[in-house]
């Protein structure tokens, strides 16, 4: 039994005869009339010492106070928002900052036209540059065709210059220590159309594209790739390659939500063909299939996510399949504990097991955080025998997803693999 004692025996004053109001008080209670000479300051030195670490933390963060106060006082967030958007909110300029890339930090902006707001009719112009002179620029236009019951067409043009693409060579047993840098300059022009009505779970999207690629030795902290050295050169290295490409994707999507999915499935089968026009003898037929399933394990957003996929690239020329048509594992969606493009070959399979659970929701806004435990598996190889007979790769990790009911805002992932730890930030549409 704990004892907390209030002790304050002060001077006693015998209550005098009083007015009616006071009499009423005196008969119902017998409070003494007490007058304290002065209120104590209440400083307990021992207590102050015990509270010191909390005060130190508060002081450490206090430099943030002027910024936060300025934001609130001058409504800087509102001013910036009004500066970057139009009055109807159908046009927005979004600053972009990327600090998680191994190529170095980058900054840029995206211009988004979405009319009406929230619709699938969208124009996005994006440009981002990094400190190592990498550049990404793209323009994509999505529009629905009312005369075709809302079928959606999409056109896009993008340019990319990557000075330090990490290349580990082909094969599922490539070593992390033998990485070389490639420089990849790419131009992609594409156009696609949804053949069926967008409200259906099934749909077919054919796409025609024209792709230009130039592969050269890269520059950066790691050694540049040189032909003839330890790693096999990717097909078309050193040449200017131009590929027309035709792709047909048949997909099925029955998710209950694009943001916080708790049930449903996504599956697709895709076939694409591309062949270089400049005599580099490089082209491929690529076939890919993938199935992802969301299984609600427990009520309120406790979900098991299972995904598996298989892809095969069949070369059309003597020089083999082009790099962009090969199966690449590693990055932010497959084998997340490995760098992007860690394992490359003609044939590959991948799978993921994730357990997602609700972590936090702000009020009843529908926006919040989910936590994820995940494990990825996969392997690549030149042929099925080599691929399935070799030990598969794995990685595991945790992720934090920022979601709304409608879409995924982004993911922060920490994954581990035998190559080490890897942090990645993903923004955009992933499952």
């Amino acid at each position, binding site marked *: *039994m*704990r*004892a*907390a*004692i*209030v002790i*304050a*025996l*002060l001077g006693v004053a*015998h209550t005098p005869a009083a007015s009616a109001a006071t009499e009423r*008080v*005196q008969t*119902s*209670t*017998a409070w*003494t*009339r*007490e*007058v*304290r*000479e002065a*209120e*104590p*300051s*209440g400083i*307990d030195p021992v*207590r102050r010492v*015990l*509270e010191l*670490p*909390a*005060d*130190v*933390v*508060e002081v450490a963060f206090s430099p*943030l*106070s002027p910024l*936060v*106060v300025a*934001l*609130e*006082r*001058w*409504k800087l967030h*509102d*001013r910036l928002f009004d500066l970057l958007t139009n009055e109807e909110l159908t046009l927005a300029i979004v600053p972009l900052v990327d600090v998680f890339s191994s190529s170095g930090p980058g900054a840029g902006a995206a211009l988004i036209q979405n009319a009406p707001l929230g619709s699938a009719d969208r124009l996005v112009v994006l440009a981002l540059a990094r400190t190592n002179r990498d550049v990404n620029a793209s323009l994509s236009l999505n529009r629905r065709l009312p005369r075709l019951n809302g079928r959606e067409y999409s056109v896009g043009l993008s340019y990319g210059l990557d000075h330090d693409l990490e290349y580990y060579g082909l094969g599922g047993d490539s070593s992390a220590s033998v990485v070389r840098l490639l420089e990849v300059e790419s131009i992609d022009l594409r156009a696609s159309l949804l053949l069926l009505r967008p409200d259906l779970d099934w749909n077919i999207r054919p796409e025609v594209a024209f792709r230009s690629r130039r592969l050269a030795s890269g520059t950066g902290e790691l050694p540049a790739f040189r032909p003839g050295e330890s790693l096999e050169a990717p097909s078309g290295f050193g040449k200017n390659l131009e590929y027309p490409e035709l792709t047909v994707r048949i997909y099925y999507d029955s998710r209950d939500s694009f943001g916080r999915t708790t049930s449903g499935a996504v599956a697709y089968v895709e076939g694409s063909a591309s062949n270089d026009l400049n005599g580099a003898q490089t082209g491929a037929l690529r076939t890919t299939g993938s199935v992802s399933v969301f299984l609600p394990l*427990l*009520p309120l957003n*406790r979900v098991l996510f299972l995904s598996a996929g298989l892809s095969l690239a069949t070369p059309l020329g003597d020089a083999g399949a082009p790099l962009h048509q090969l199966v690449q594992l590693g990055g932010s969606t497959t084998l997340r504990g490995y760098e992007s493009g860690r394992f490359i070959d003609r044939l590959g399979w991948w799978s993921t097991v994730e*357990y997602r*659970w*609700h*972590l*936090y929701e*702000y*009020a*009843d806004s529908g926006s919040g*955080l989910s*936590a994820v*435990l995940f494990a990825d598996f996969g392997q690549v190889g030149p042929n099925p025998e080599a691929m399935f007979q070799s030990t598969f790769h794995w990685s595991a990790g945790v992720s934090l997803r920022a979601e709304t009911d409608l879409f995924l805002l982004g993911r922060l992932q920490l994954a581990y693999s035998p190559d080490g730890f890897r942090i990645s930030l993903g923004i955009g549409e992933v499952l």
Partner: protein
Amino acid sequence: MRAPEPELHPEPPRSRGWAWWEALLYAAIRPLGEVISPATYADALGAKEEALDVNAFGQVYASSWFTPRIGRWVMTPDEVAAGGDTLTGPTTGPWIVLGGKVEGATPGLIMQDLDGVTFLVKFDPPAFPELSSAAELISTKILWAAGYNVPENYLGICNLRWLQLSPRATTGGEYGEEVPLNKSRLAAILAHVNPLPDGTVRALFSRIVPGTVLGPGSYRGVRAGDPNDKIPHQHRRSLRGLWLFSAWLNNTDTRDANTLDVFVPTGGGLGYVQHYLLDFGDALGAAGVRPKYIGEGYVHRVDWDAIFGQLLSLGLYYPYWLPVRRAPFRSVGVFEAEVFEPSSWRPNLPNPAFDAATELDTYWAGSIIARFTPEILRAIVARAGYSEPGAADYLLEVLLRRRLKVLRHAFEPVLALDDPSARGFTVTMTDLEHEAGLIDGAAAVLSWSLRAGDRELASGQAAGPRFDLQQALGARPSFADLVIRRARGGPALVLHLRVLEDGVLPVGLEREVD
């Protein structure tokens, strides 16, 4: 039972509160600091400091913070329902509009009536009529009766056709700057109001408190420039105990921004600071312009305990408040008593005074809440003017059931006897648990022991809190201690008595905490 008269001083510097910084500080920075602070763990082991603004009986004395009312004398339901009102409301129009209300979530105006009295006029959200105005009125009455300084709030009818713009009227602009309040801006404010065809709408008229506004108060520290503000606010029982009132009324928005310090001039450029609580539109089932969301009042807006509970349990943890449902009345919102547990109640933002509360602070608040009888609460709820059939009865029922829960929580660790008084050698007290219906006659039997120093003078049992000590005090010691506990066991209460020739006088009281 009065603090010394305040020291008169010049007007202190004004301060301005910043809601964003306050939210970041209490939602993220302080919790981070508290994790590594030994004081947090010492508190968990029962080492919290007791409040400093209390007298020998554990009561809060009258001051510029608090004036004991219902805990001090018996008040009739009508007295409580009238609650500090000095008017009957604003006069009829025309009213001069002096400004637009830019702070807070609900739309409003500042206007002056024909008698020159200035009011802040607040309107209910059109989709939820009576929701926030009723919540504000009921909470104001209860907190005034408890002893807190609150504005005078009146429910009435606002005739929009009576509004006349003052040429000097201002409001907040798009980016918070002060701009003239013109007709178009006034129309924008009133666009959120849903008047009847005759231009009338129910509104809450909050009389502007007298004095010079210094700015929001704080639940922590002291105000610079106020020589009377010696006790850090988190060590004030009146503020600590406010948590129990807030839990009872589900007043979740207990931020610094909803307090107000006002300089009251007394002449010669001197005066003192008076401390107010205000803005109760987030009490009961309301949250300003909408009902509370499910979970509001059960978890902080950013509740690290809940987040880490979810994280470490891998989602196996489900919060206890999931079964909470909205009341079947639009004017009541989310307000219930089934799931509510006082010990688990949480304001939107952690409150340093609430976090510092001890069992004795909680008991003190409970001892006041116990005075709000069903009749008193019925009279208060009637003032709120619910028009939805059944809403008033529903709200009253929930208030009463929540009251029982908060009283059980407050009285569980102590012996809830209070109001010591003596006539001659007979000491009587009030058994708050018995009066509140928490225990029946058998459980109310008390055992007592009268001691003078180490010597026991007498002992016995009593069916109720009435002790005739004349025979026991035959030797007339100067002081004696009456130790009381329930006959079934539990924490004790020690009443210190001064023994006089013709009777005894209670001079102090100690409570054991279980």
